[in-house]
């Protein structure tokens, strides 16, 4: 008997079999309990509910949604909302982050001071508190009649932020979106020998051309190129309106995220070996060339893994939107659970949605990483 236990191979197999058996037992027990509880509460199962209409409205969506839309469509709208606010957050937070990083590594002491104070203040306060704060601020703005008017272009009121926009119809936006996707995909797929800058330059040129064409064609002659928000009666017409929920979430996440992204970029820039920069100077490169060909590529390579993590974190952080009523994917799922009672199915969809988003970011960032990583060494 002792010899059987002394055999390491047998012991390893026994432990692993036991582990698998325990997991299977837990899963079966959970499923059985769930079935009984669900049957007790008279709830339906399966994904059939996705075809039913919801009966509740959404206060913000990119696609048309009403109380008569199906669950599938409403969930899709929620997922789009999450992706939309997430991508906007990543874009603006990165811009602000770059600015903060440059301020913090500049030789000017005052710039450093301002950058440091910003980072310490915004990084050390929970993001949800910041979102609550901006939401309170935006909803305490004056009513539309007394809206704060900045140069007749931007109007601030408790209904939201009104900004001027290009006069584009829904179709125009779809055309632009398709151009954008095809353009990025073709850059992605083609293994062209031409340089990175030239490919992106051609892409930007083509996109600008398409943009100009859709902007100038198919427009009513009396409508201007740019539409400005105006108060007509009790509601605003023209321009785009950013609802307080959306704006507060975006501002909160951008200001918070920028403090982290700024620190990552700063770390990346500082990680570049001083000797390499000196070598550039010794070779007679100009300051711009040193930055363009030595510092930025090396720093980018160093910061990319942390940046990926931070992007994924920010994407997940959009879920705090539920606290101020922004209908993101999580908010829609939780309302749907309340309304339809299809708890397990919706939970699976929720997990699936976030895993999909996170893996897409991870995939895109890994592609970039492969593109820029040290070549010739494996």
């Amino acid at each position, binding site marked *: 008997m002792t010899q059987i236990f002394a055999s390491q191979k047998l012991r390893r197999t026994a432990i692993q079999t036991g582990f698998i058996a325990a997991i299977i037992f837990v899963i079966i027990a959970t499923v059985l309990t769930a079935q009984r509880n669900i049957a007790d509460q008279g709830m339906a199962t399966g994904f059939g509910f996705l075809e039913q209409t919801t009966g509740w409205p959404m206060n913000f969506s990119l696609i048309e949604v009403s109380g008569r839309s199906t669950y599938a469509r409403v969930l899709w709208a929620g997922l789009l909302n999450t992706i939309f606010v997430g991508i906007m957050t990543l874009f603006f937070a990165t811009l602000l982050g770059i600015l903060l990083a440059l301020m913090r590594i500049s030789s*000017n002491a005052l*710039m450093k001071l301002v950058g440091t104070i910003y980072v310490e203040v915004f990084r050390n306060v929970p993001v949800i*508190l910041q979102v609550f704060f901006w939401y309170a601020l935006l909803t305490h703005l004056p009513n539309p009649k007394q809206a704060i008017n900045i140069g007749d272009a931007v109007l601030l009121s408790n209904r939201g932020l009104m900004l001027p926009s290009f006069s584009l119809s829904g179709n125009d936006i779809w055309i632009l979106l398709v151009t954008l996707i095809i353009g990025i995909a073709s850059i992605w797929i083609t293994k062209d020998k031409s340089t990175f800058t030239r490919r992106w330059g051609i892409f930007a040129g083509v996109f600008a051309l398409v943009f100009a064409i859709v902007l100038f064609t198919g427009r009513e002659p009396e409508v201007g190129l740019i539409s400005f928000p105006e108060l007509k009666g009790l509601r605003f017409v023209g321009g785009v309106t950013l609802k307080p929920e959306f704006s507060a979430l975006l501002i909160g996440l951008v200001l918070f995220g920028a403090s982290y992204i700024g620190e990552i970029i700063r770390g990346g820039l500082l990680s570049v070996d001083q000797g390499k920069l000196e070598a550039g100077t010794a070779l007679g490169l100009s300051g711009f060339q040193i930055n363009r060909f030595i510092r930025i590529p090396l720093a980018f390579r160093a910061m990319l893994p942390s940046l990926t993590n931070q992007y994924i974190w920010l994407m997940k952080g959009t879920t705090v939107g539920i606290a101020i009523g922004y209908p993101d994917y999580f908010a829609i799922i939780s309302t749907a659970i309340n309304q339809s009672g299809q708890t397990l199915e919706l939970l699976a969809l929720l997990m699936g949605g976030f895993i999909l988003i996170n893996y897409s970011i991870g995939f895109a960032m890994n592609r970039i990483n492969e593109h820029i990583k040290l070549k010739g060494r494996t």
Partner: protein
Amino acid sequence: MIEAVPPPSARMSTLNWARKNFFATWYDAVFSIILAVLIIMGLNALIGWAFLDAIWSVENKDQCTYDAGACWAVIESRGRLILFGLYPYEEQWRSTIACLVVISTIALSCLPVFWSIRRIPILWIAGFTIFVLLMRGGFAGMPLVSSDQWGGLSLTIFIFAGVFVIGMPLAVLFALARRSNLPVIAKSFGFFIDIVRSLPLLTILFAAAVIVPLLLPEAIQGNKLMRVVIAFAIFFAAYQAEIIRAGLQSTPKGQEEAAVALGMPYWSLISDILLPQAFRNTLPSTINQAVITFKETSIVTIIGFFEVMASGNAAIGNGEWGNQYVEVYVFLALIYFIFVFGLSRYGAWLETRMRLGHA
């Protein structure tokens, strides 16, 4: 042994210092002047709002208007609600002491004396137990206060401490399981950790609060607060496990081999050789994780707990002090800032100290 001393600082005259830092080039000078003006204006407005024009106490809240500065009277009137939530008024001293106990536990664990694999757990379990006993009461003449009456800062601290006390052992377990040499165990824990890490904290807490009751028999469900703390601890453990795993990987292979060669049993190898080094190597990341966890306790407000964020919202939510939201949010931000900034400064200090080879 002679300890390394920090390098001597280069001395510079005040004029040279100013020239180098503010007026190195002409555009530096322009930026400096513009920024200096902006900073002075900002500071002026801030000090005016927060101190000079501020109203510290009022008989009637109508005295607080938009024209004056901050109306700190709202904190005077609502401070207890924010700090203690719905905890019974006469018993709030218990909540205060309980919070102080946990804060001292945090402070004590910053001292190198306690950095041992035996002392730290004892310290934390003791601190946490005292906290729970004081908050709950029900003995020695202290009336029982059930956990649904807990609120405000003490609930935030309870969640934080609970997550730490439950999450740390779990994290060690996850990390060891993930690098176990039994492939089935390593793979399943790796899969589990990756799934947890790719989900938002809020969804995990929501699942624990709302969905777990469907899946578990009633006997082992526990109450909502307990479920949420355990779910939060699992989330924390998934992240902390990766930190510990990195620490384990960074300890030289020879250490483990030497211990095996000496015939040390597995648990002694783990707890005497590997874990102390792993923790020491990853102390800054661990503190960073603690900082993030403290900030993220504010998320539980969304699933209906009355911790300090929610009680702050309640303080301005009833209309009476609705216009003083800035003051209340600033007060809340200060509470978080003190904890988080203190901890993260400590982490940064530790990092420099370790880089110099003192730790």
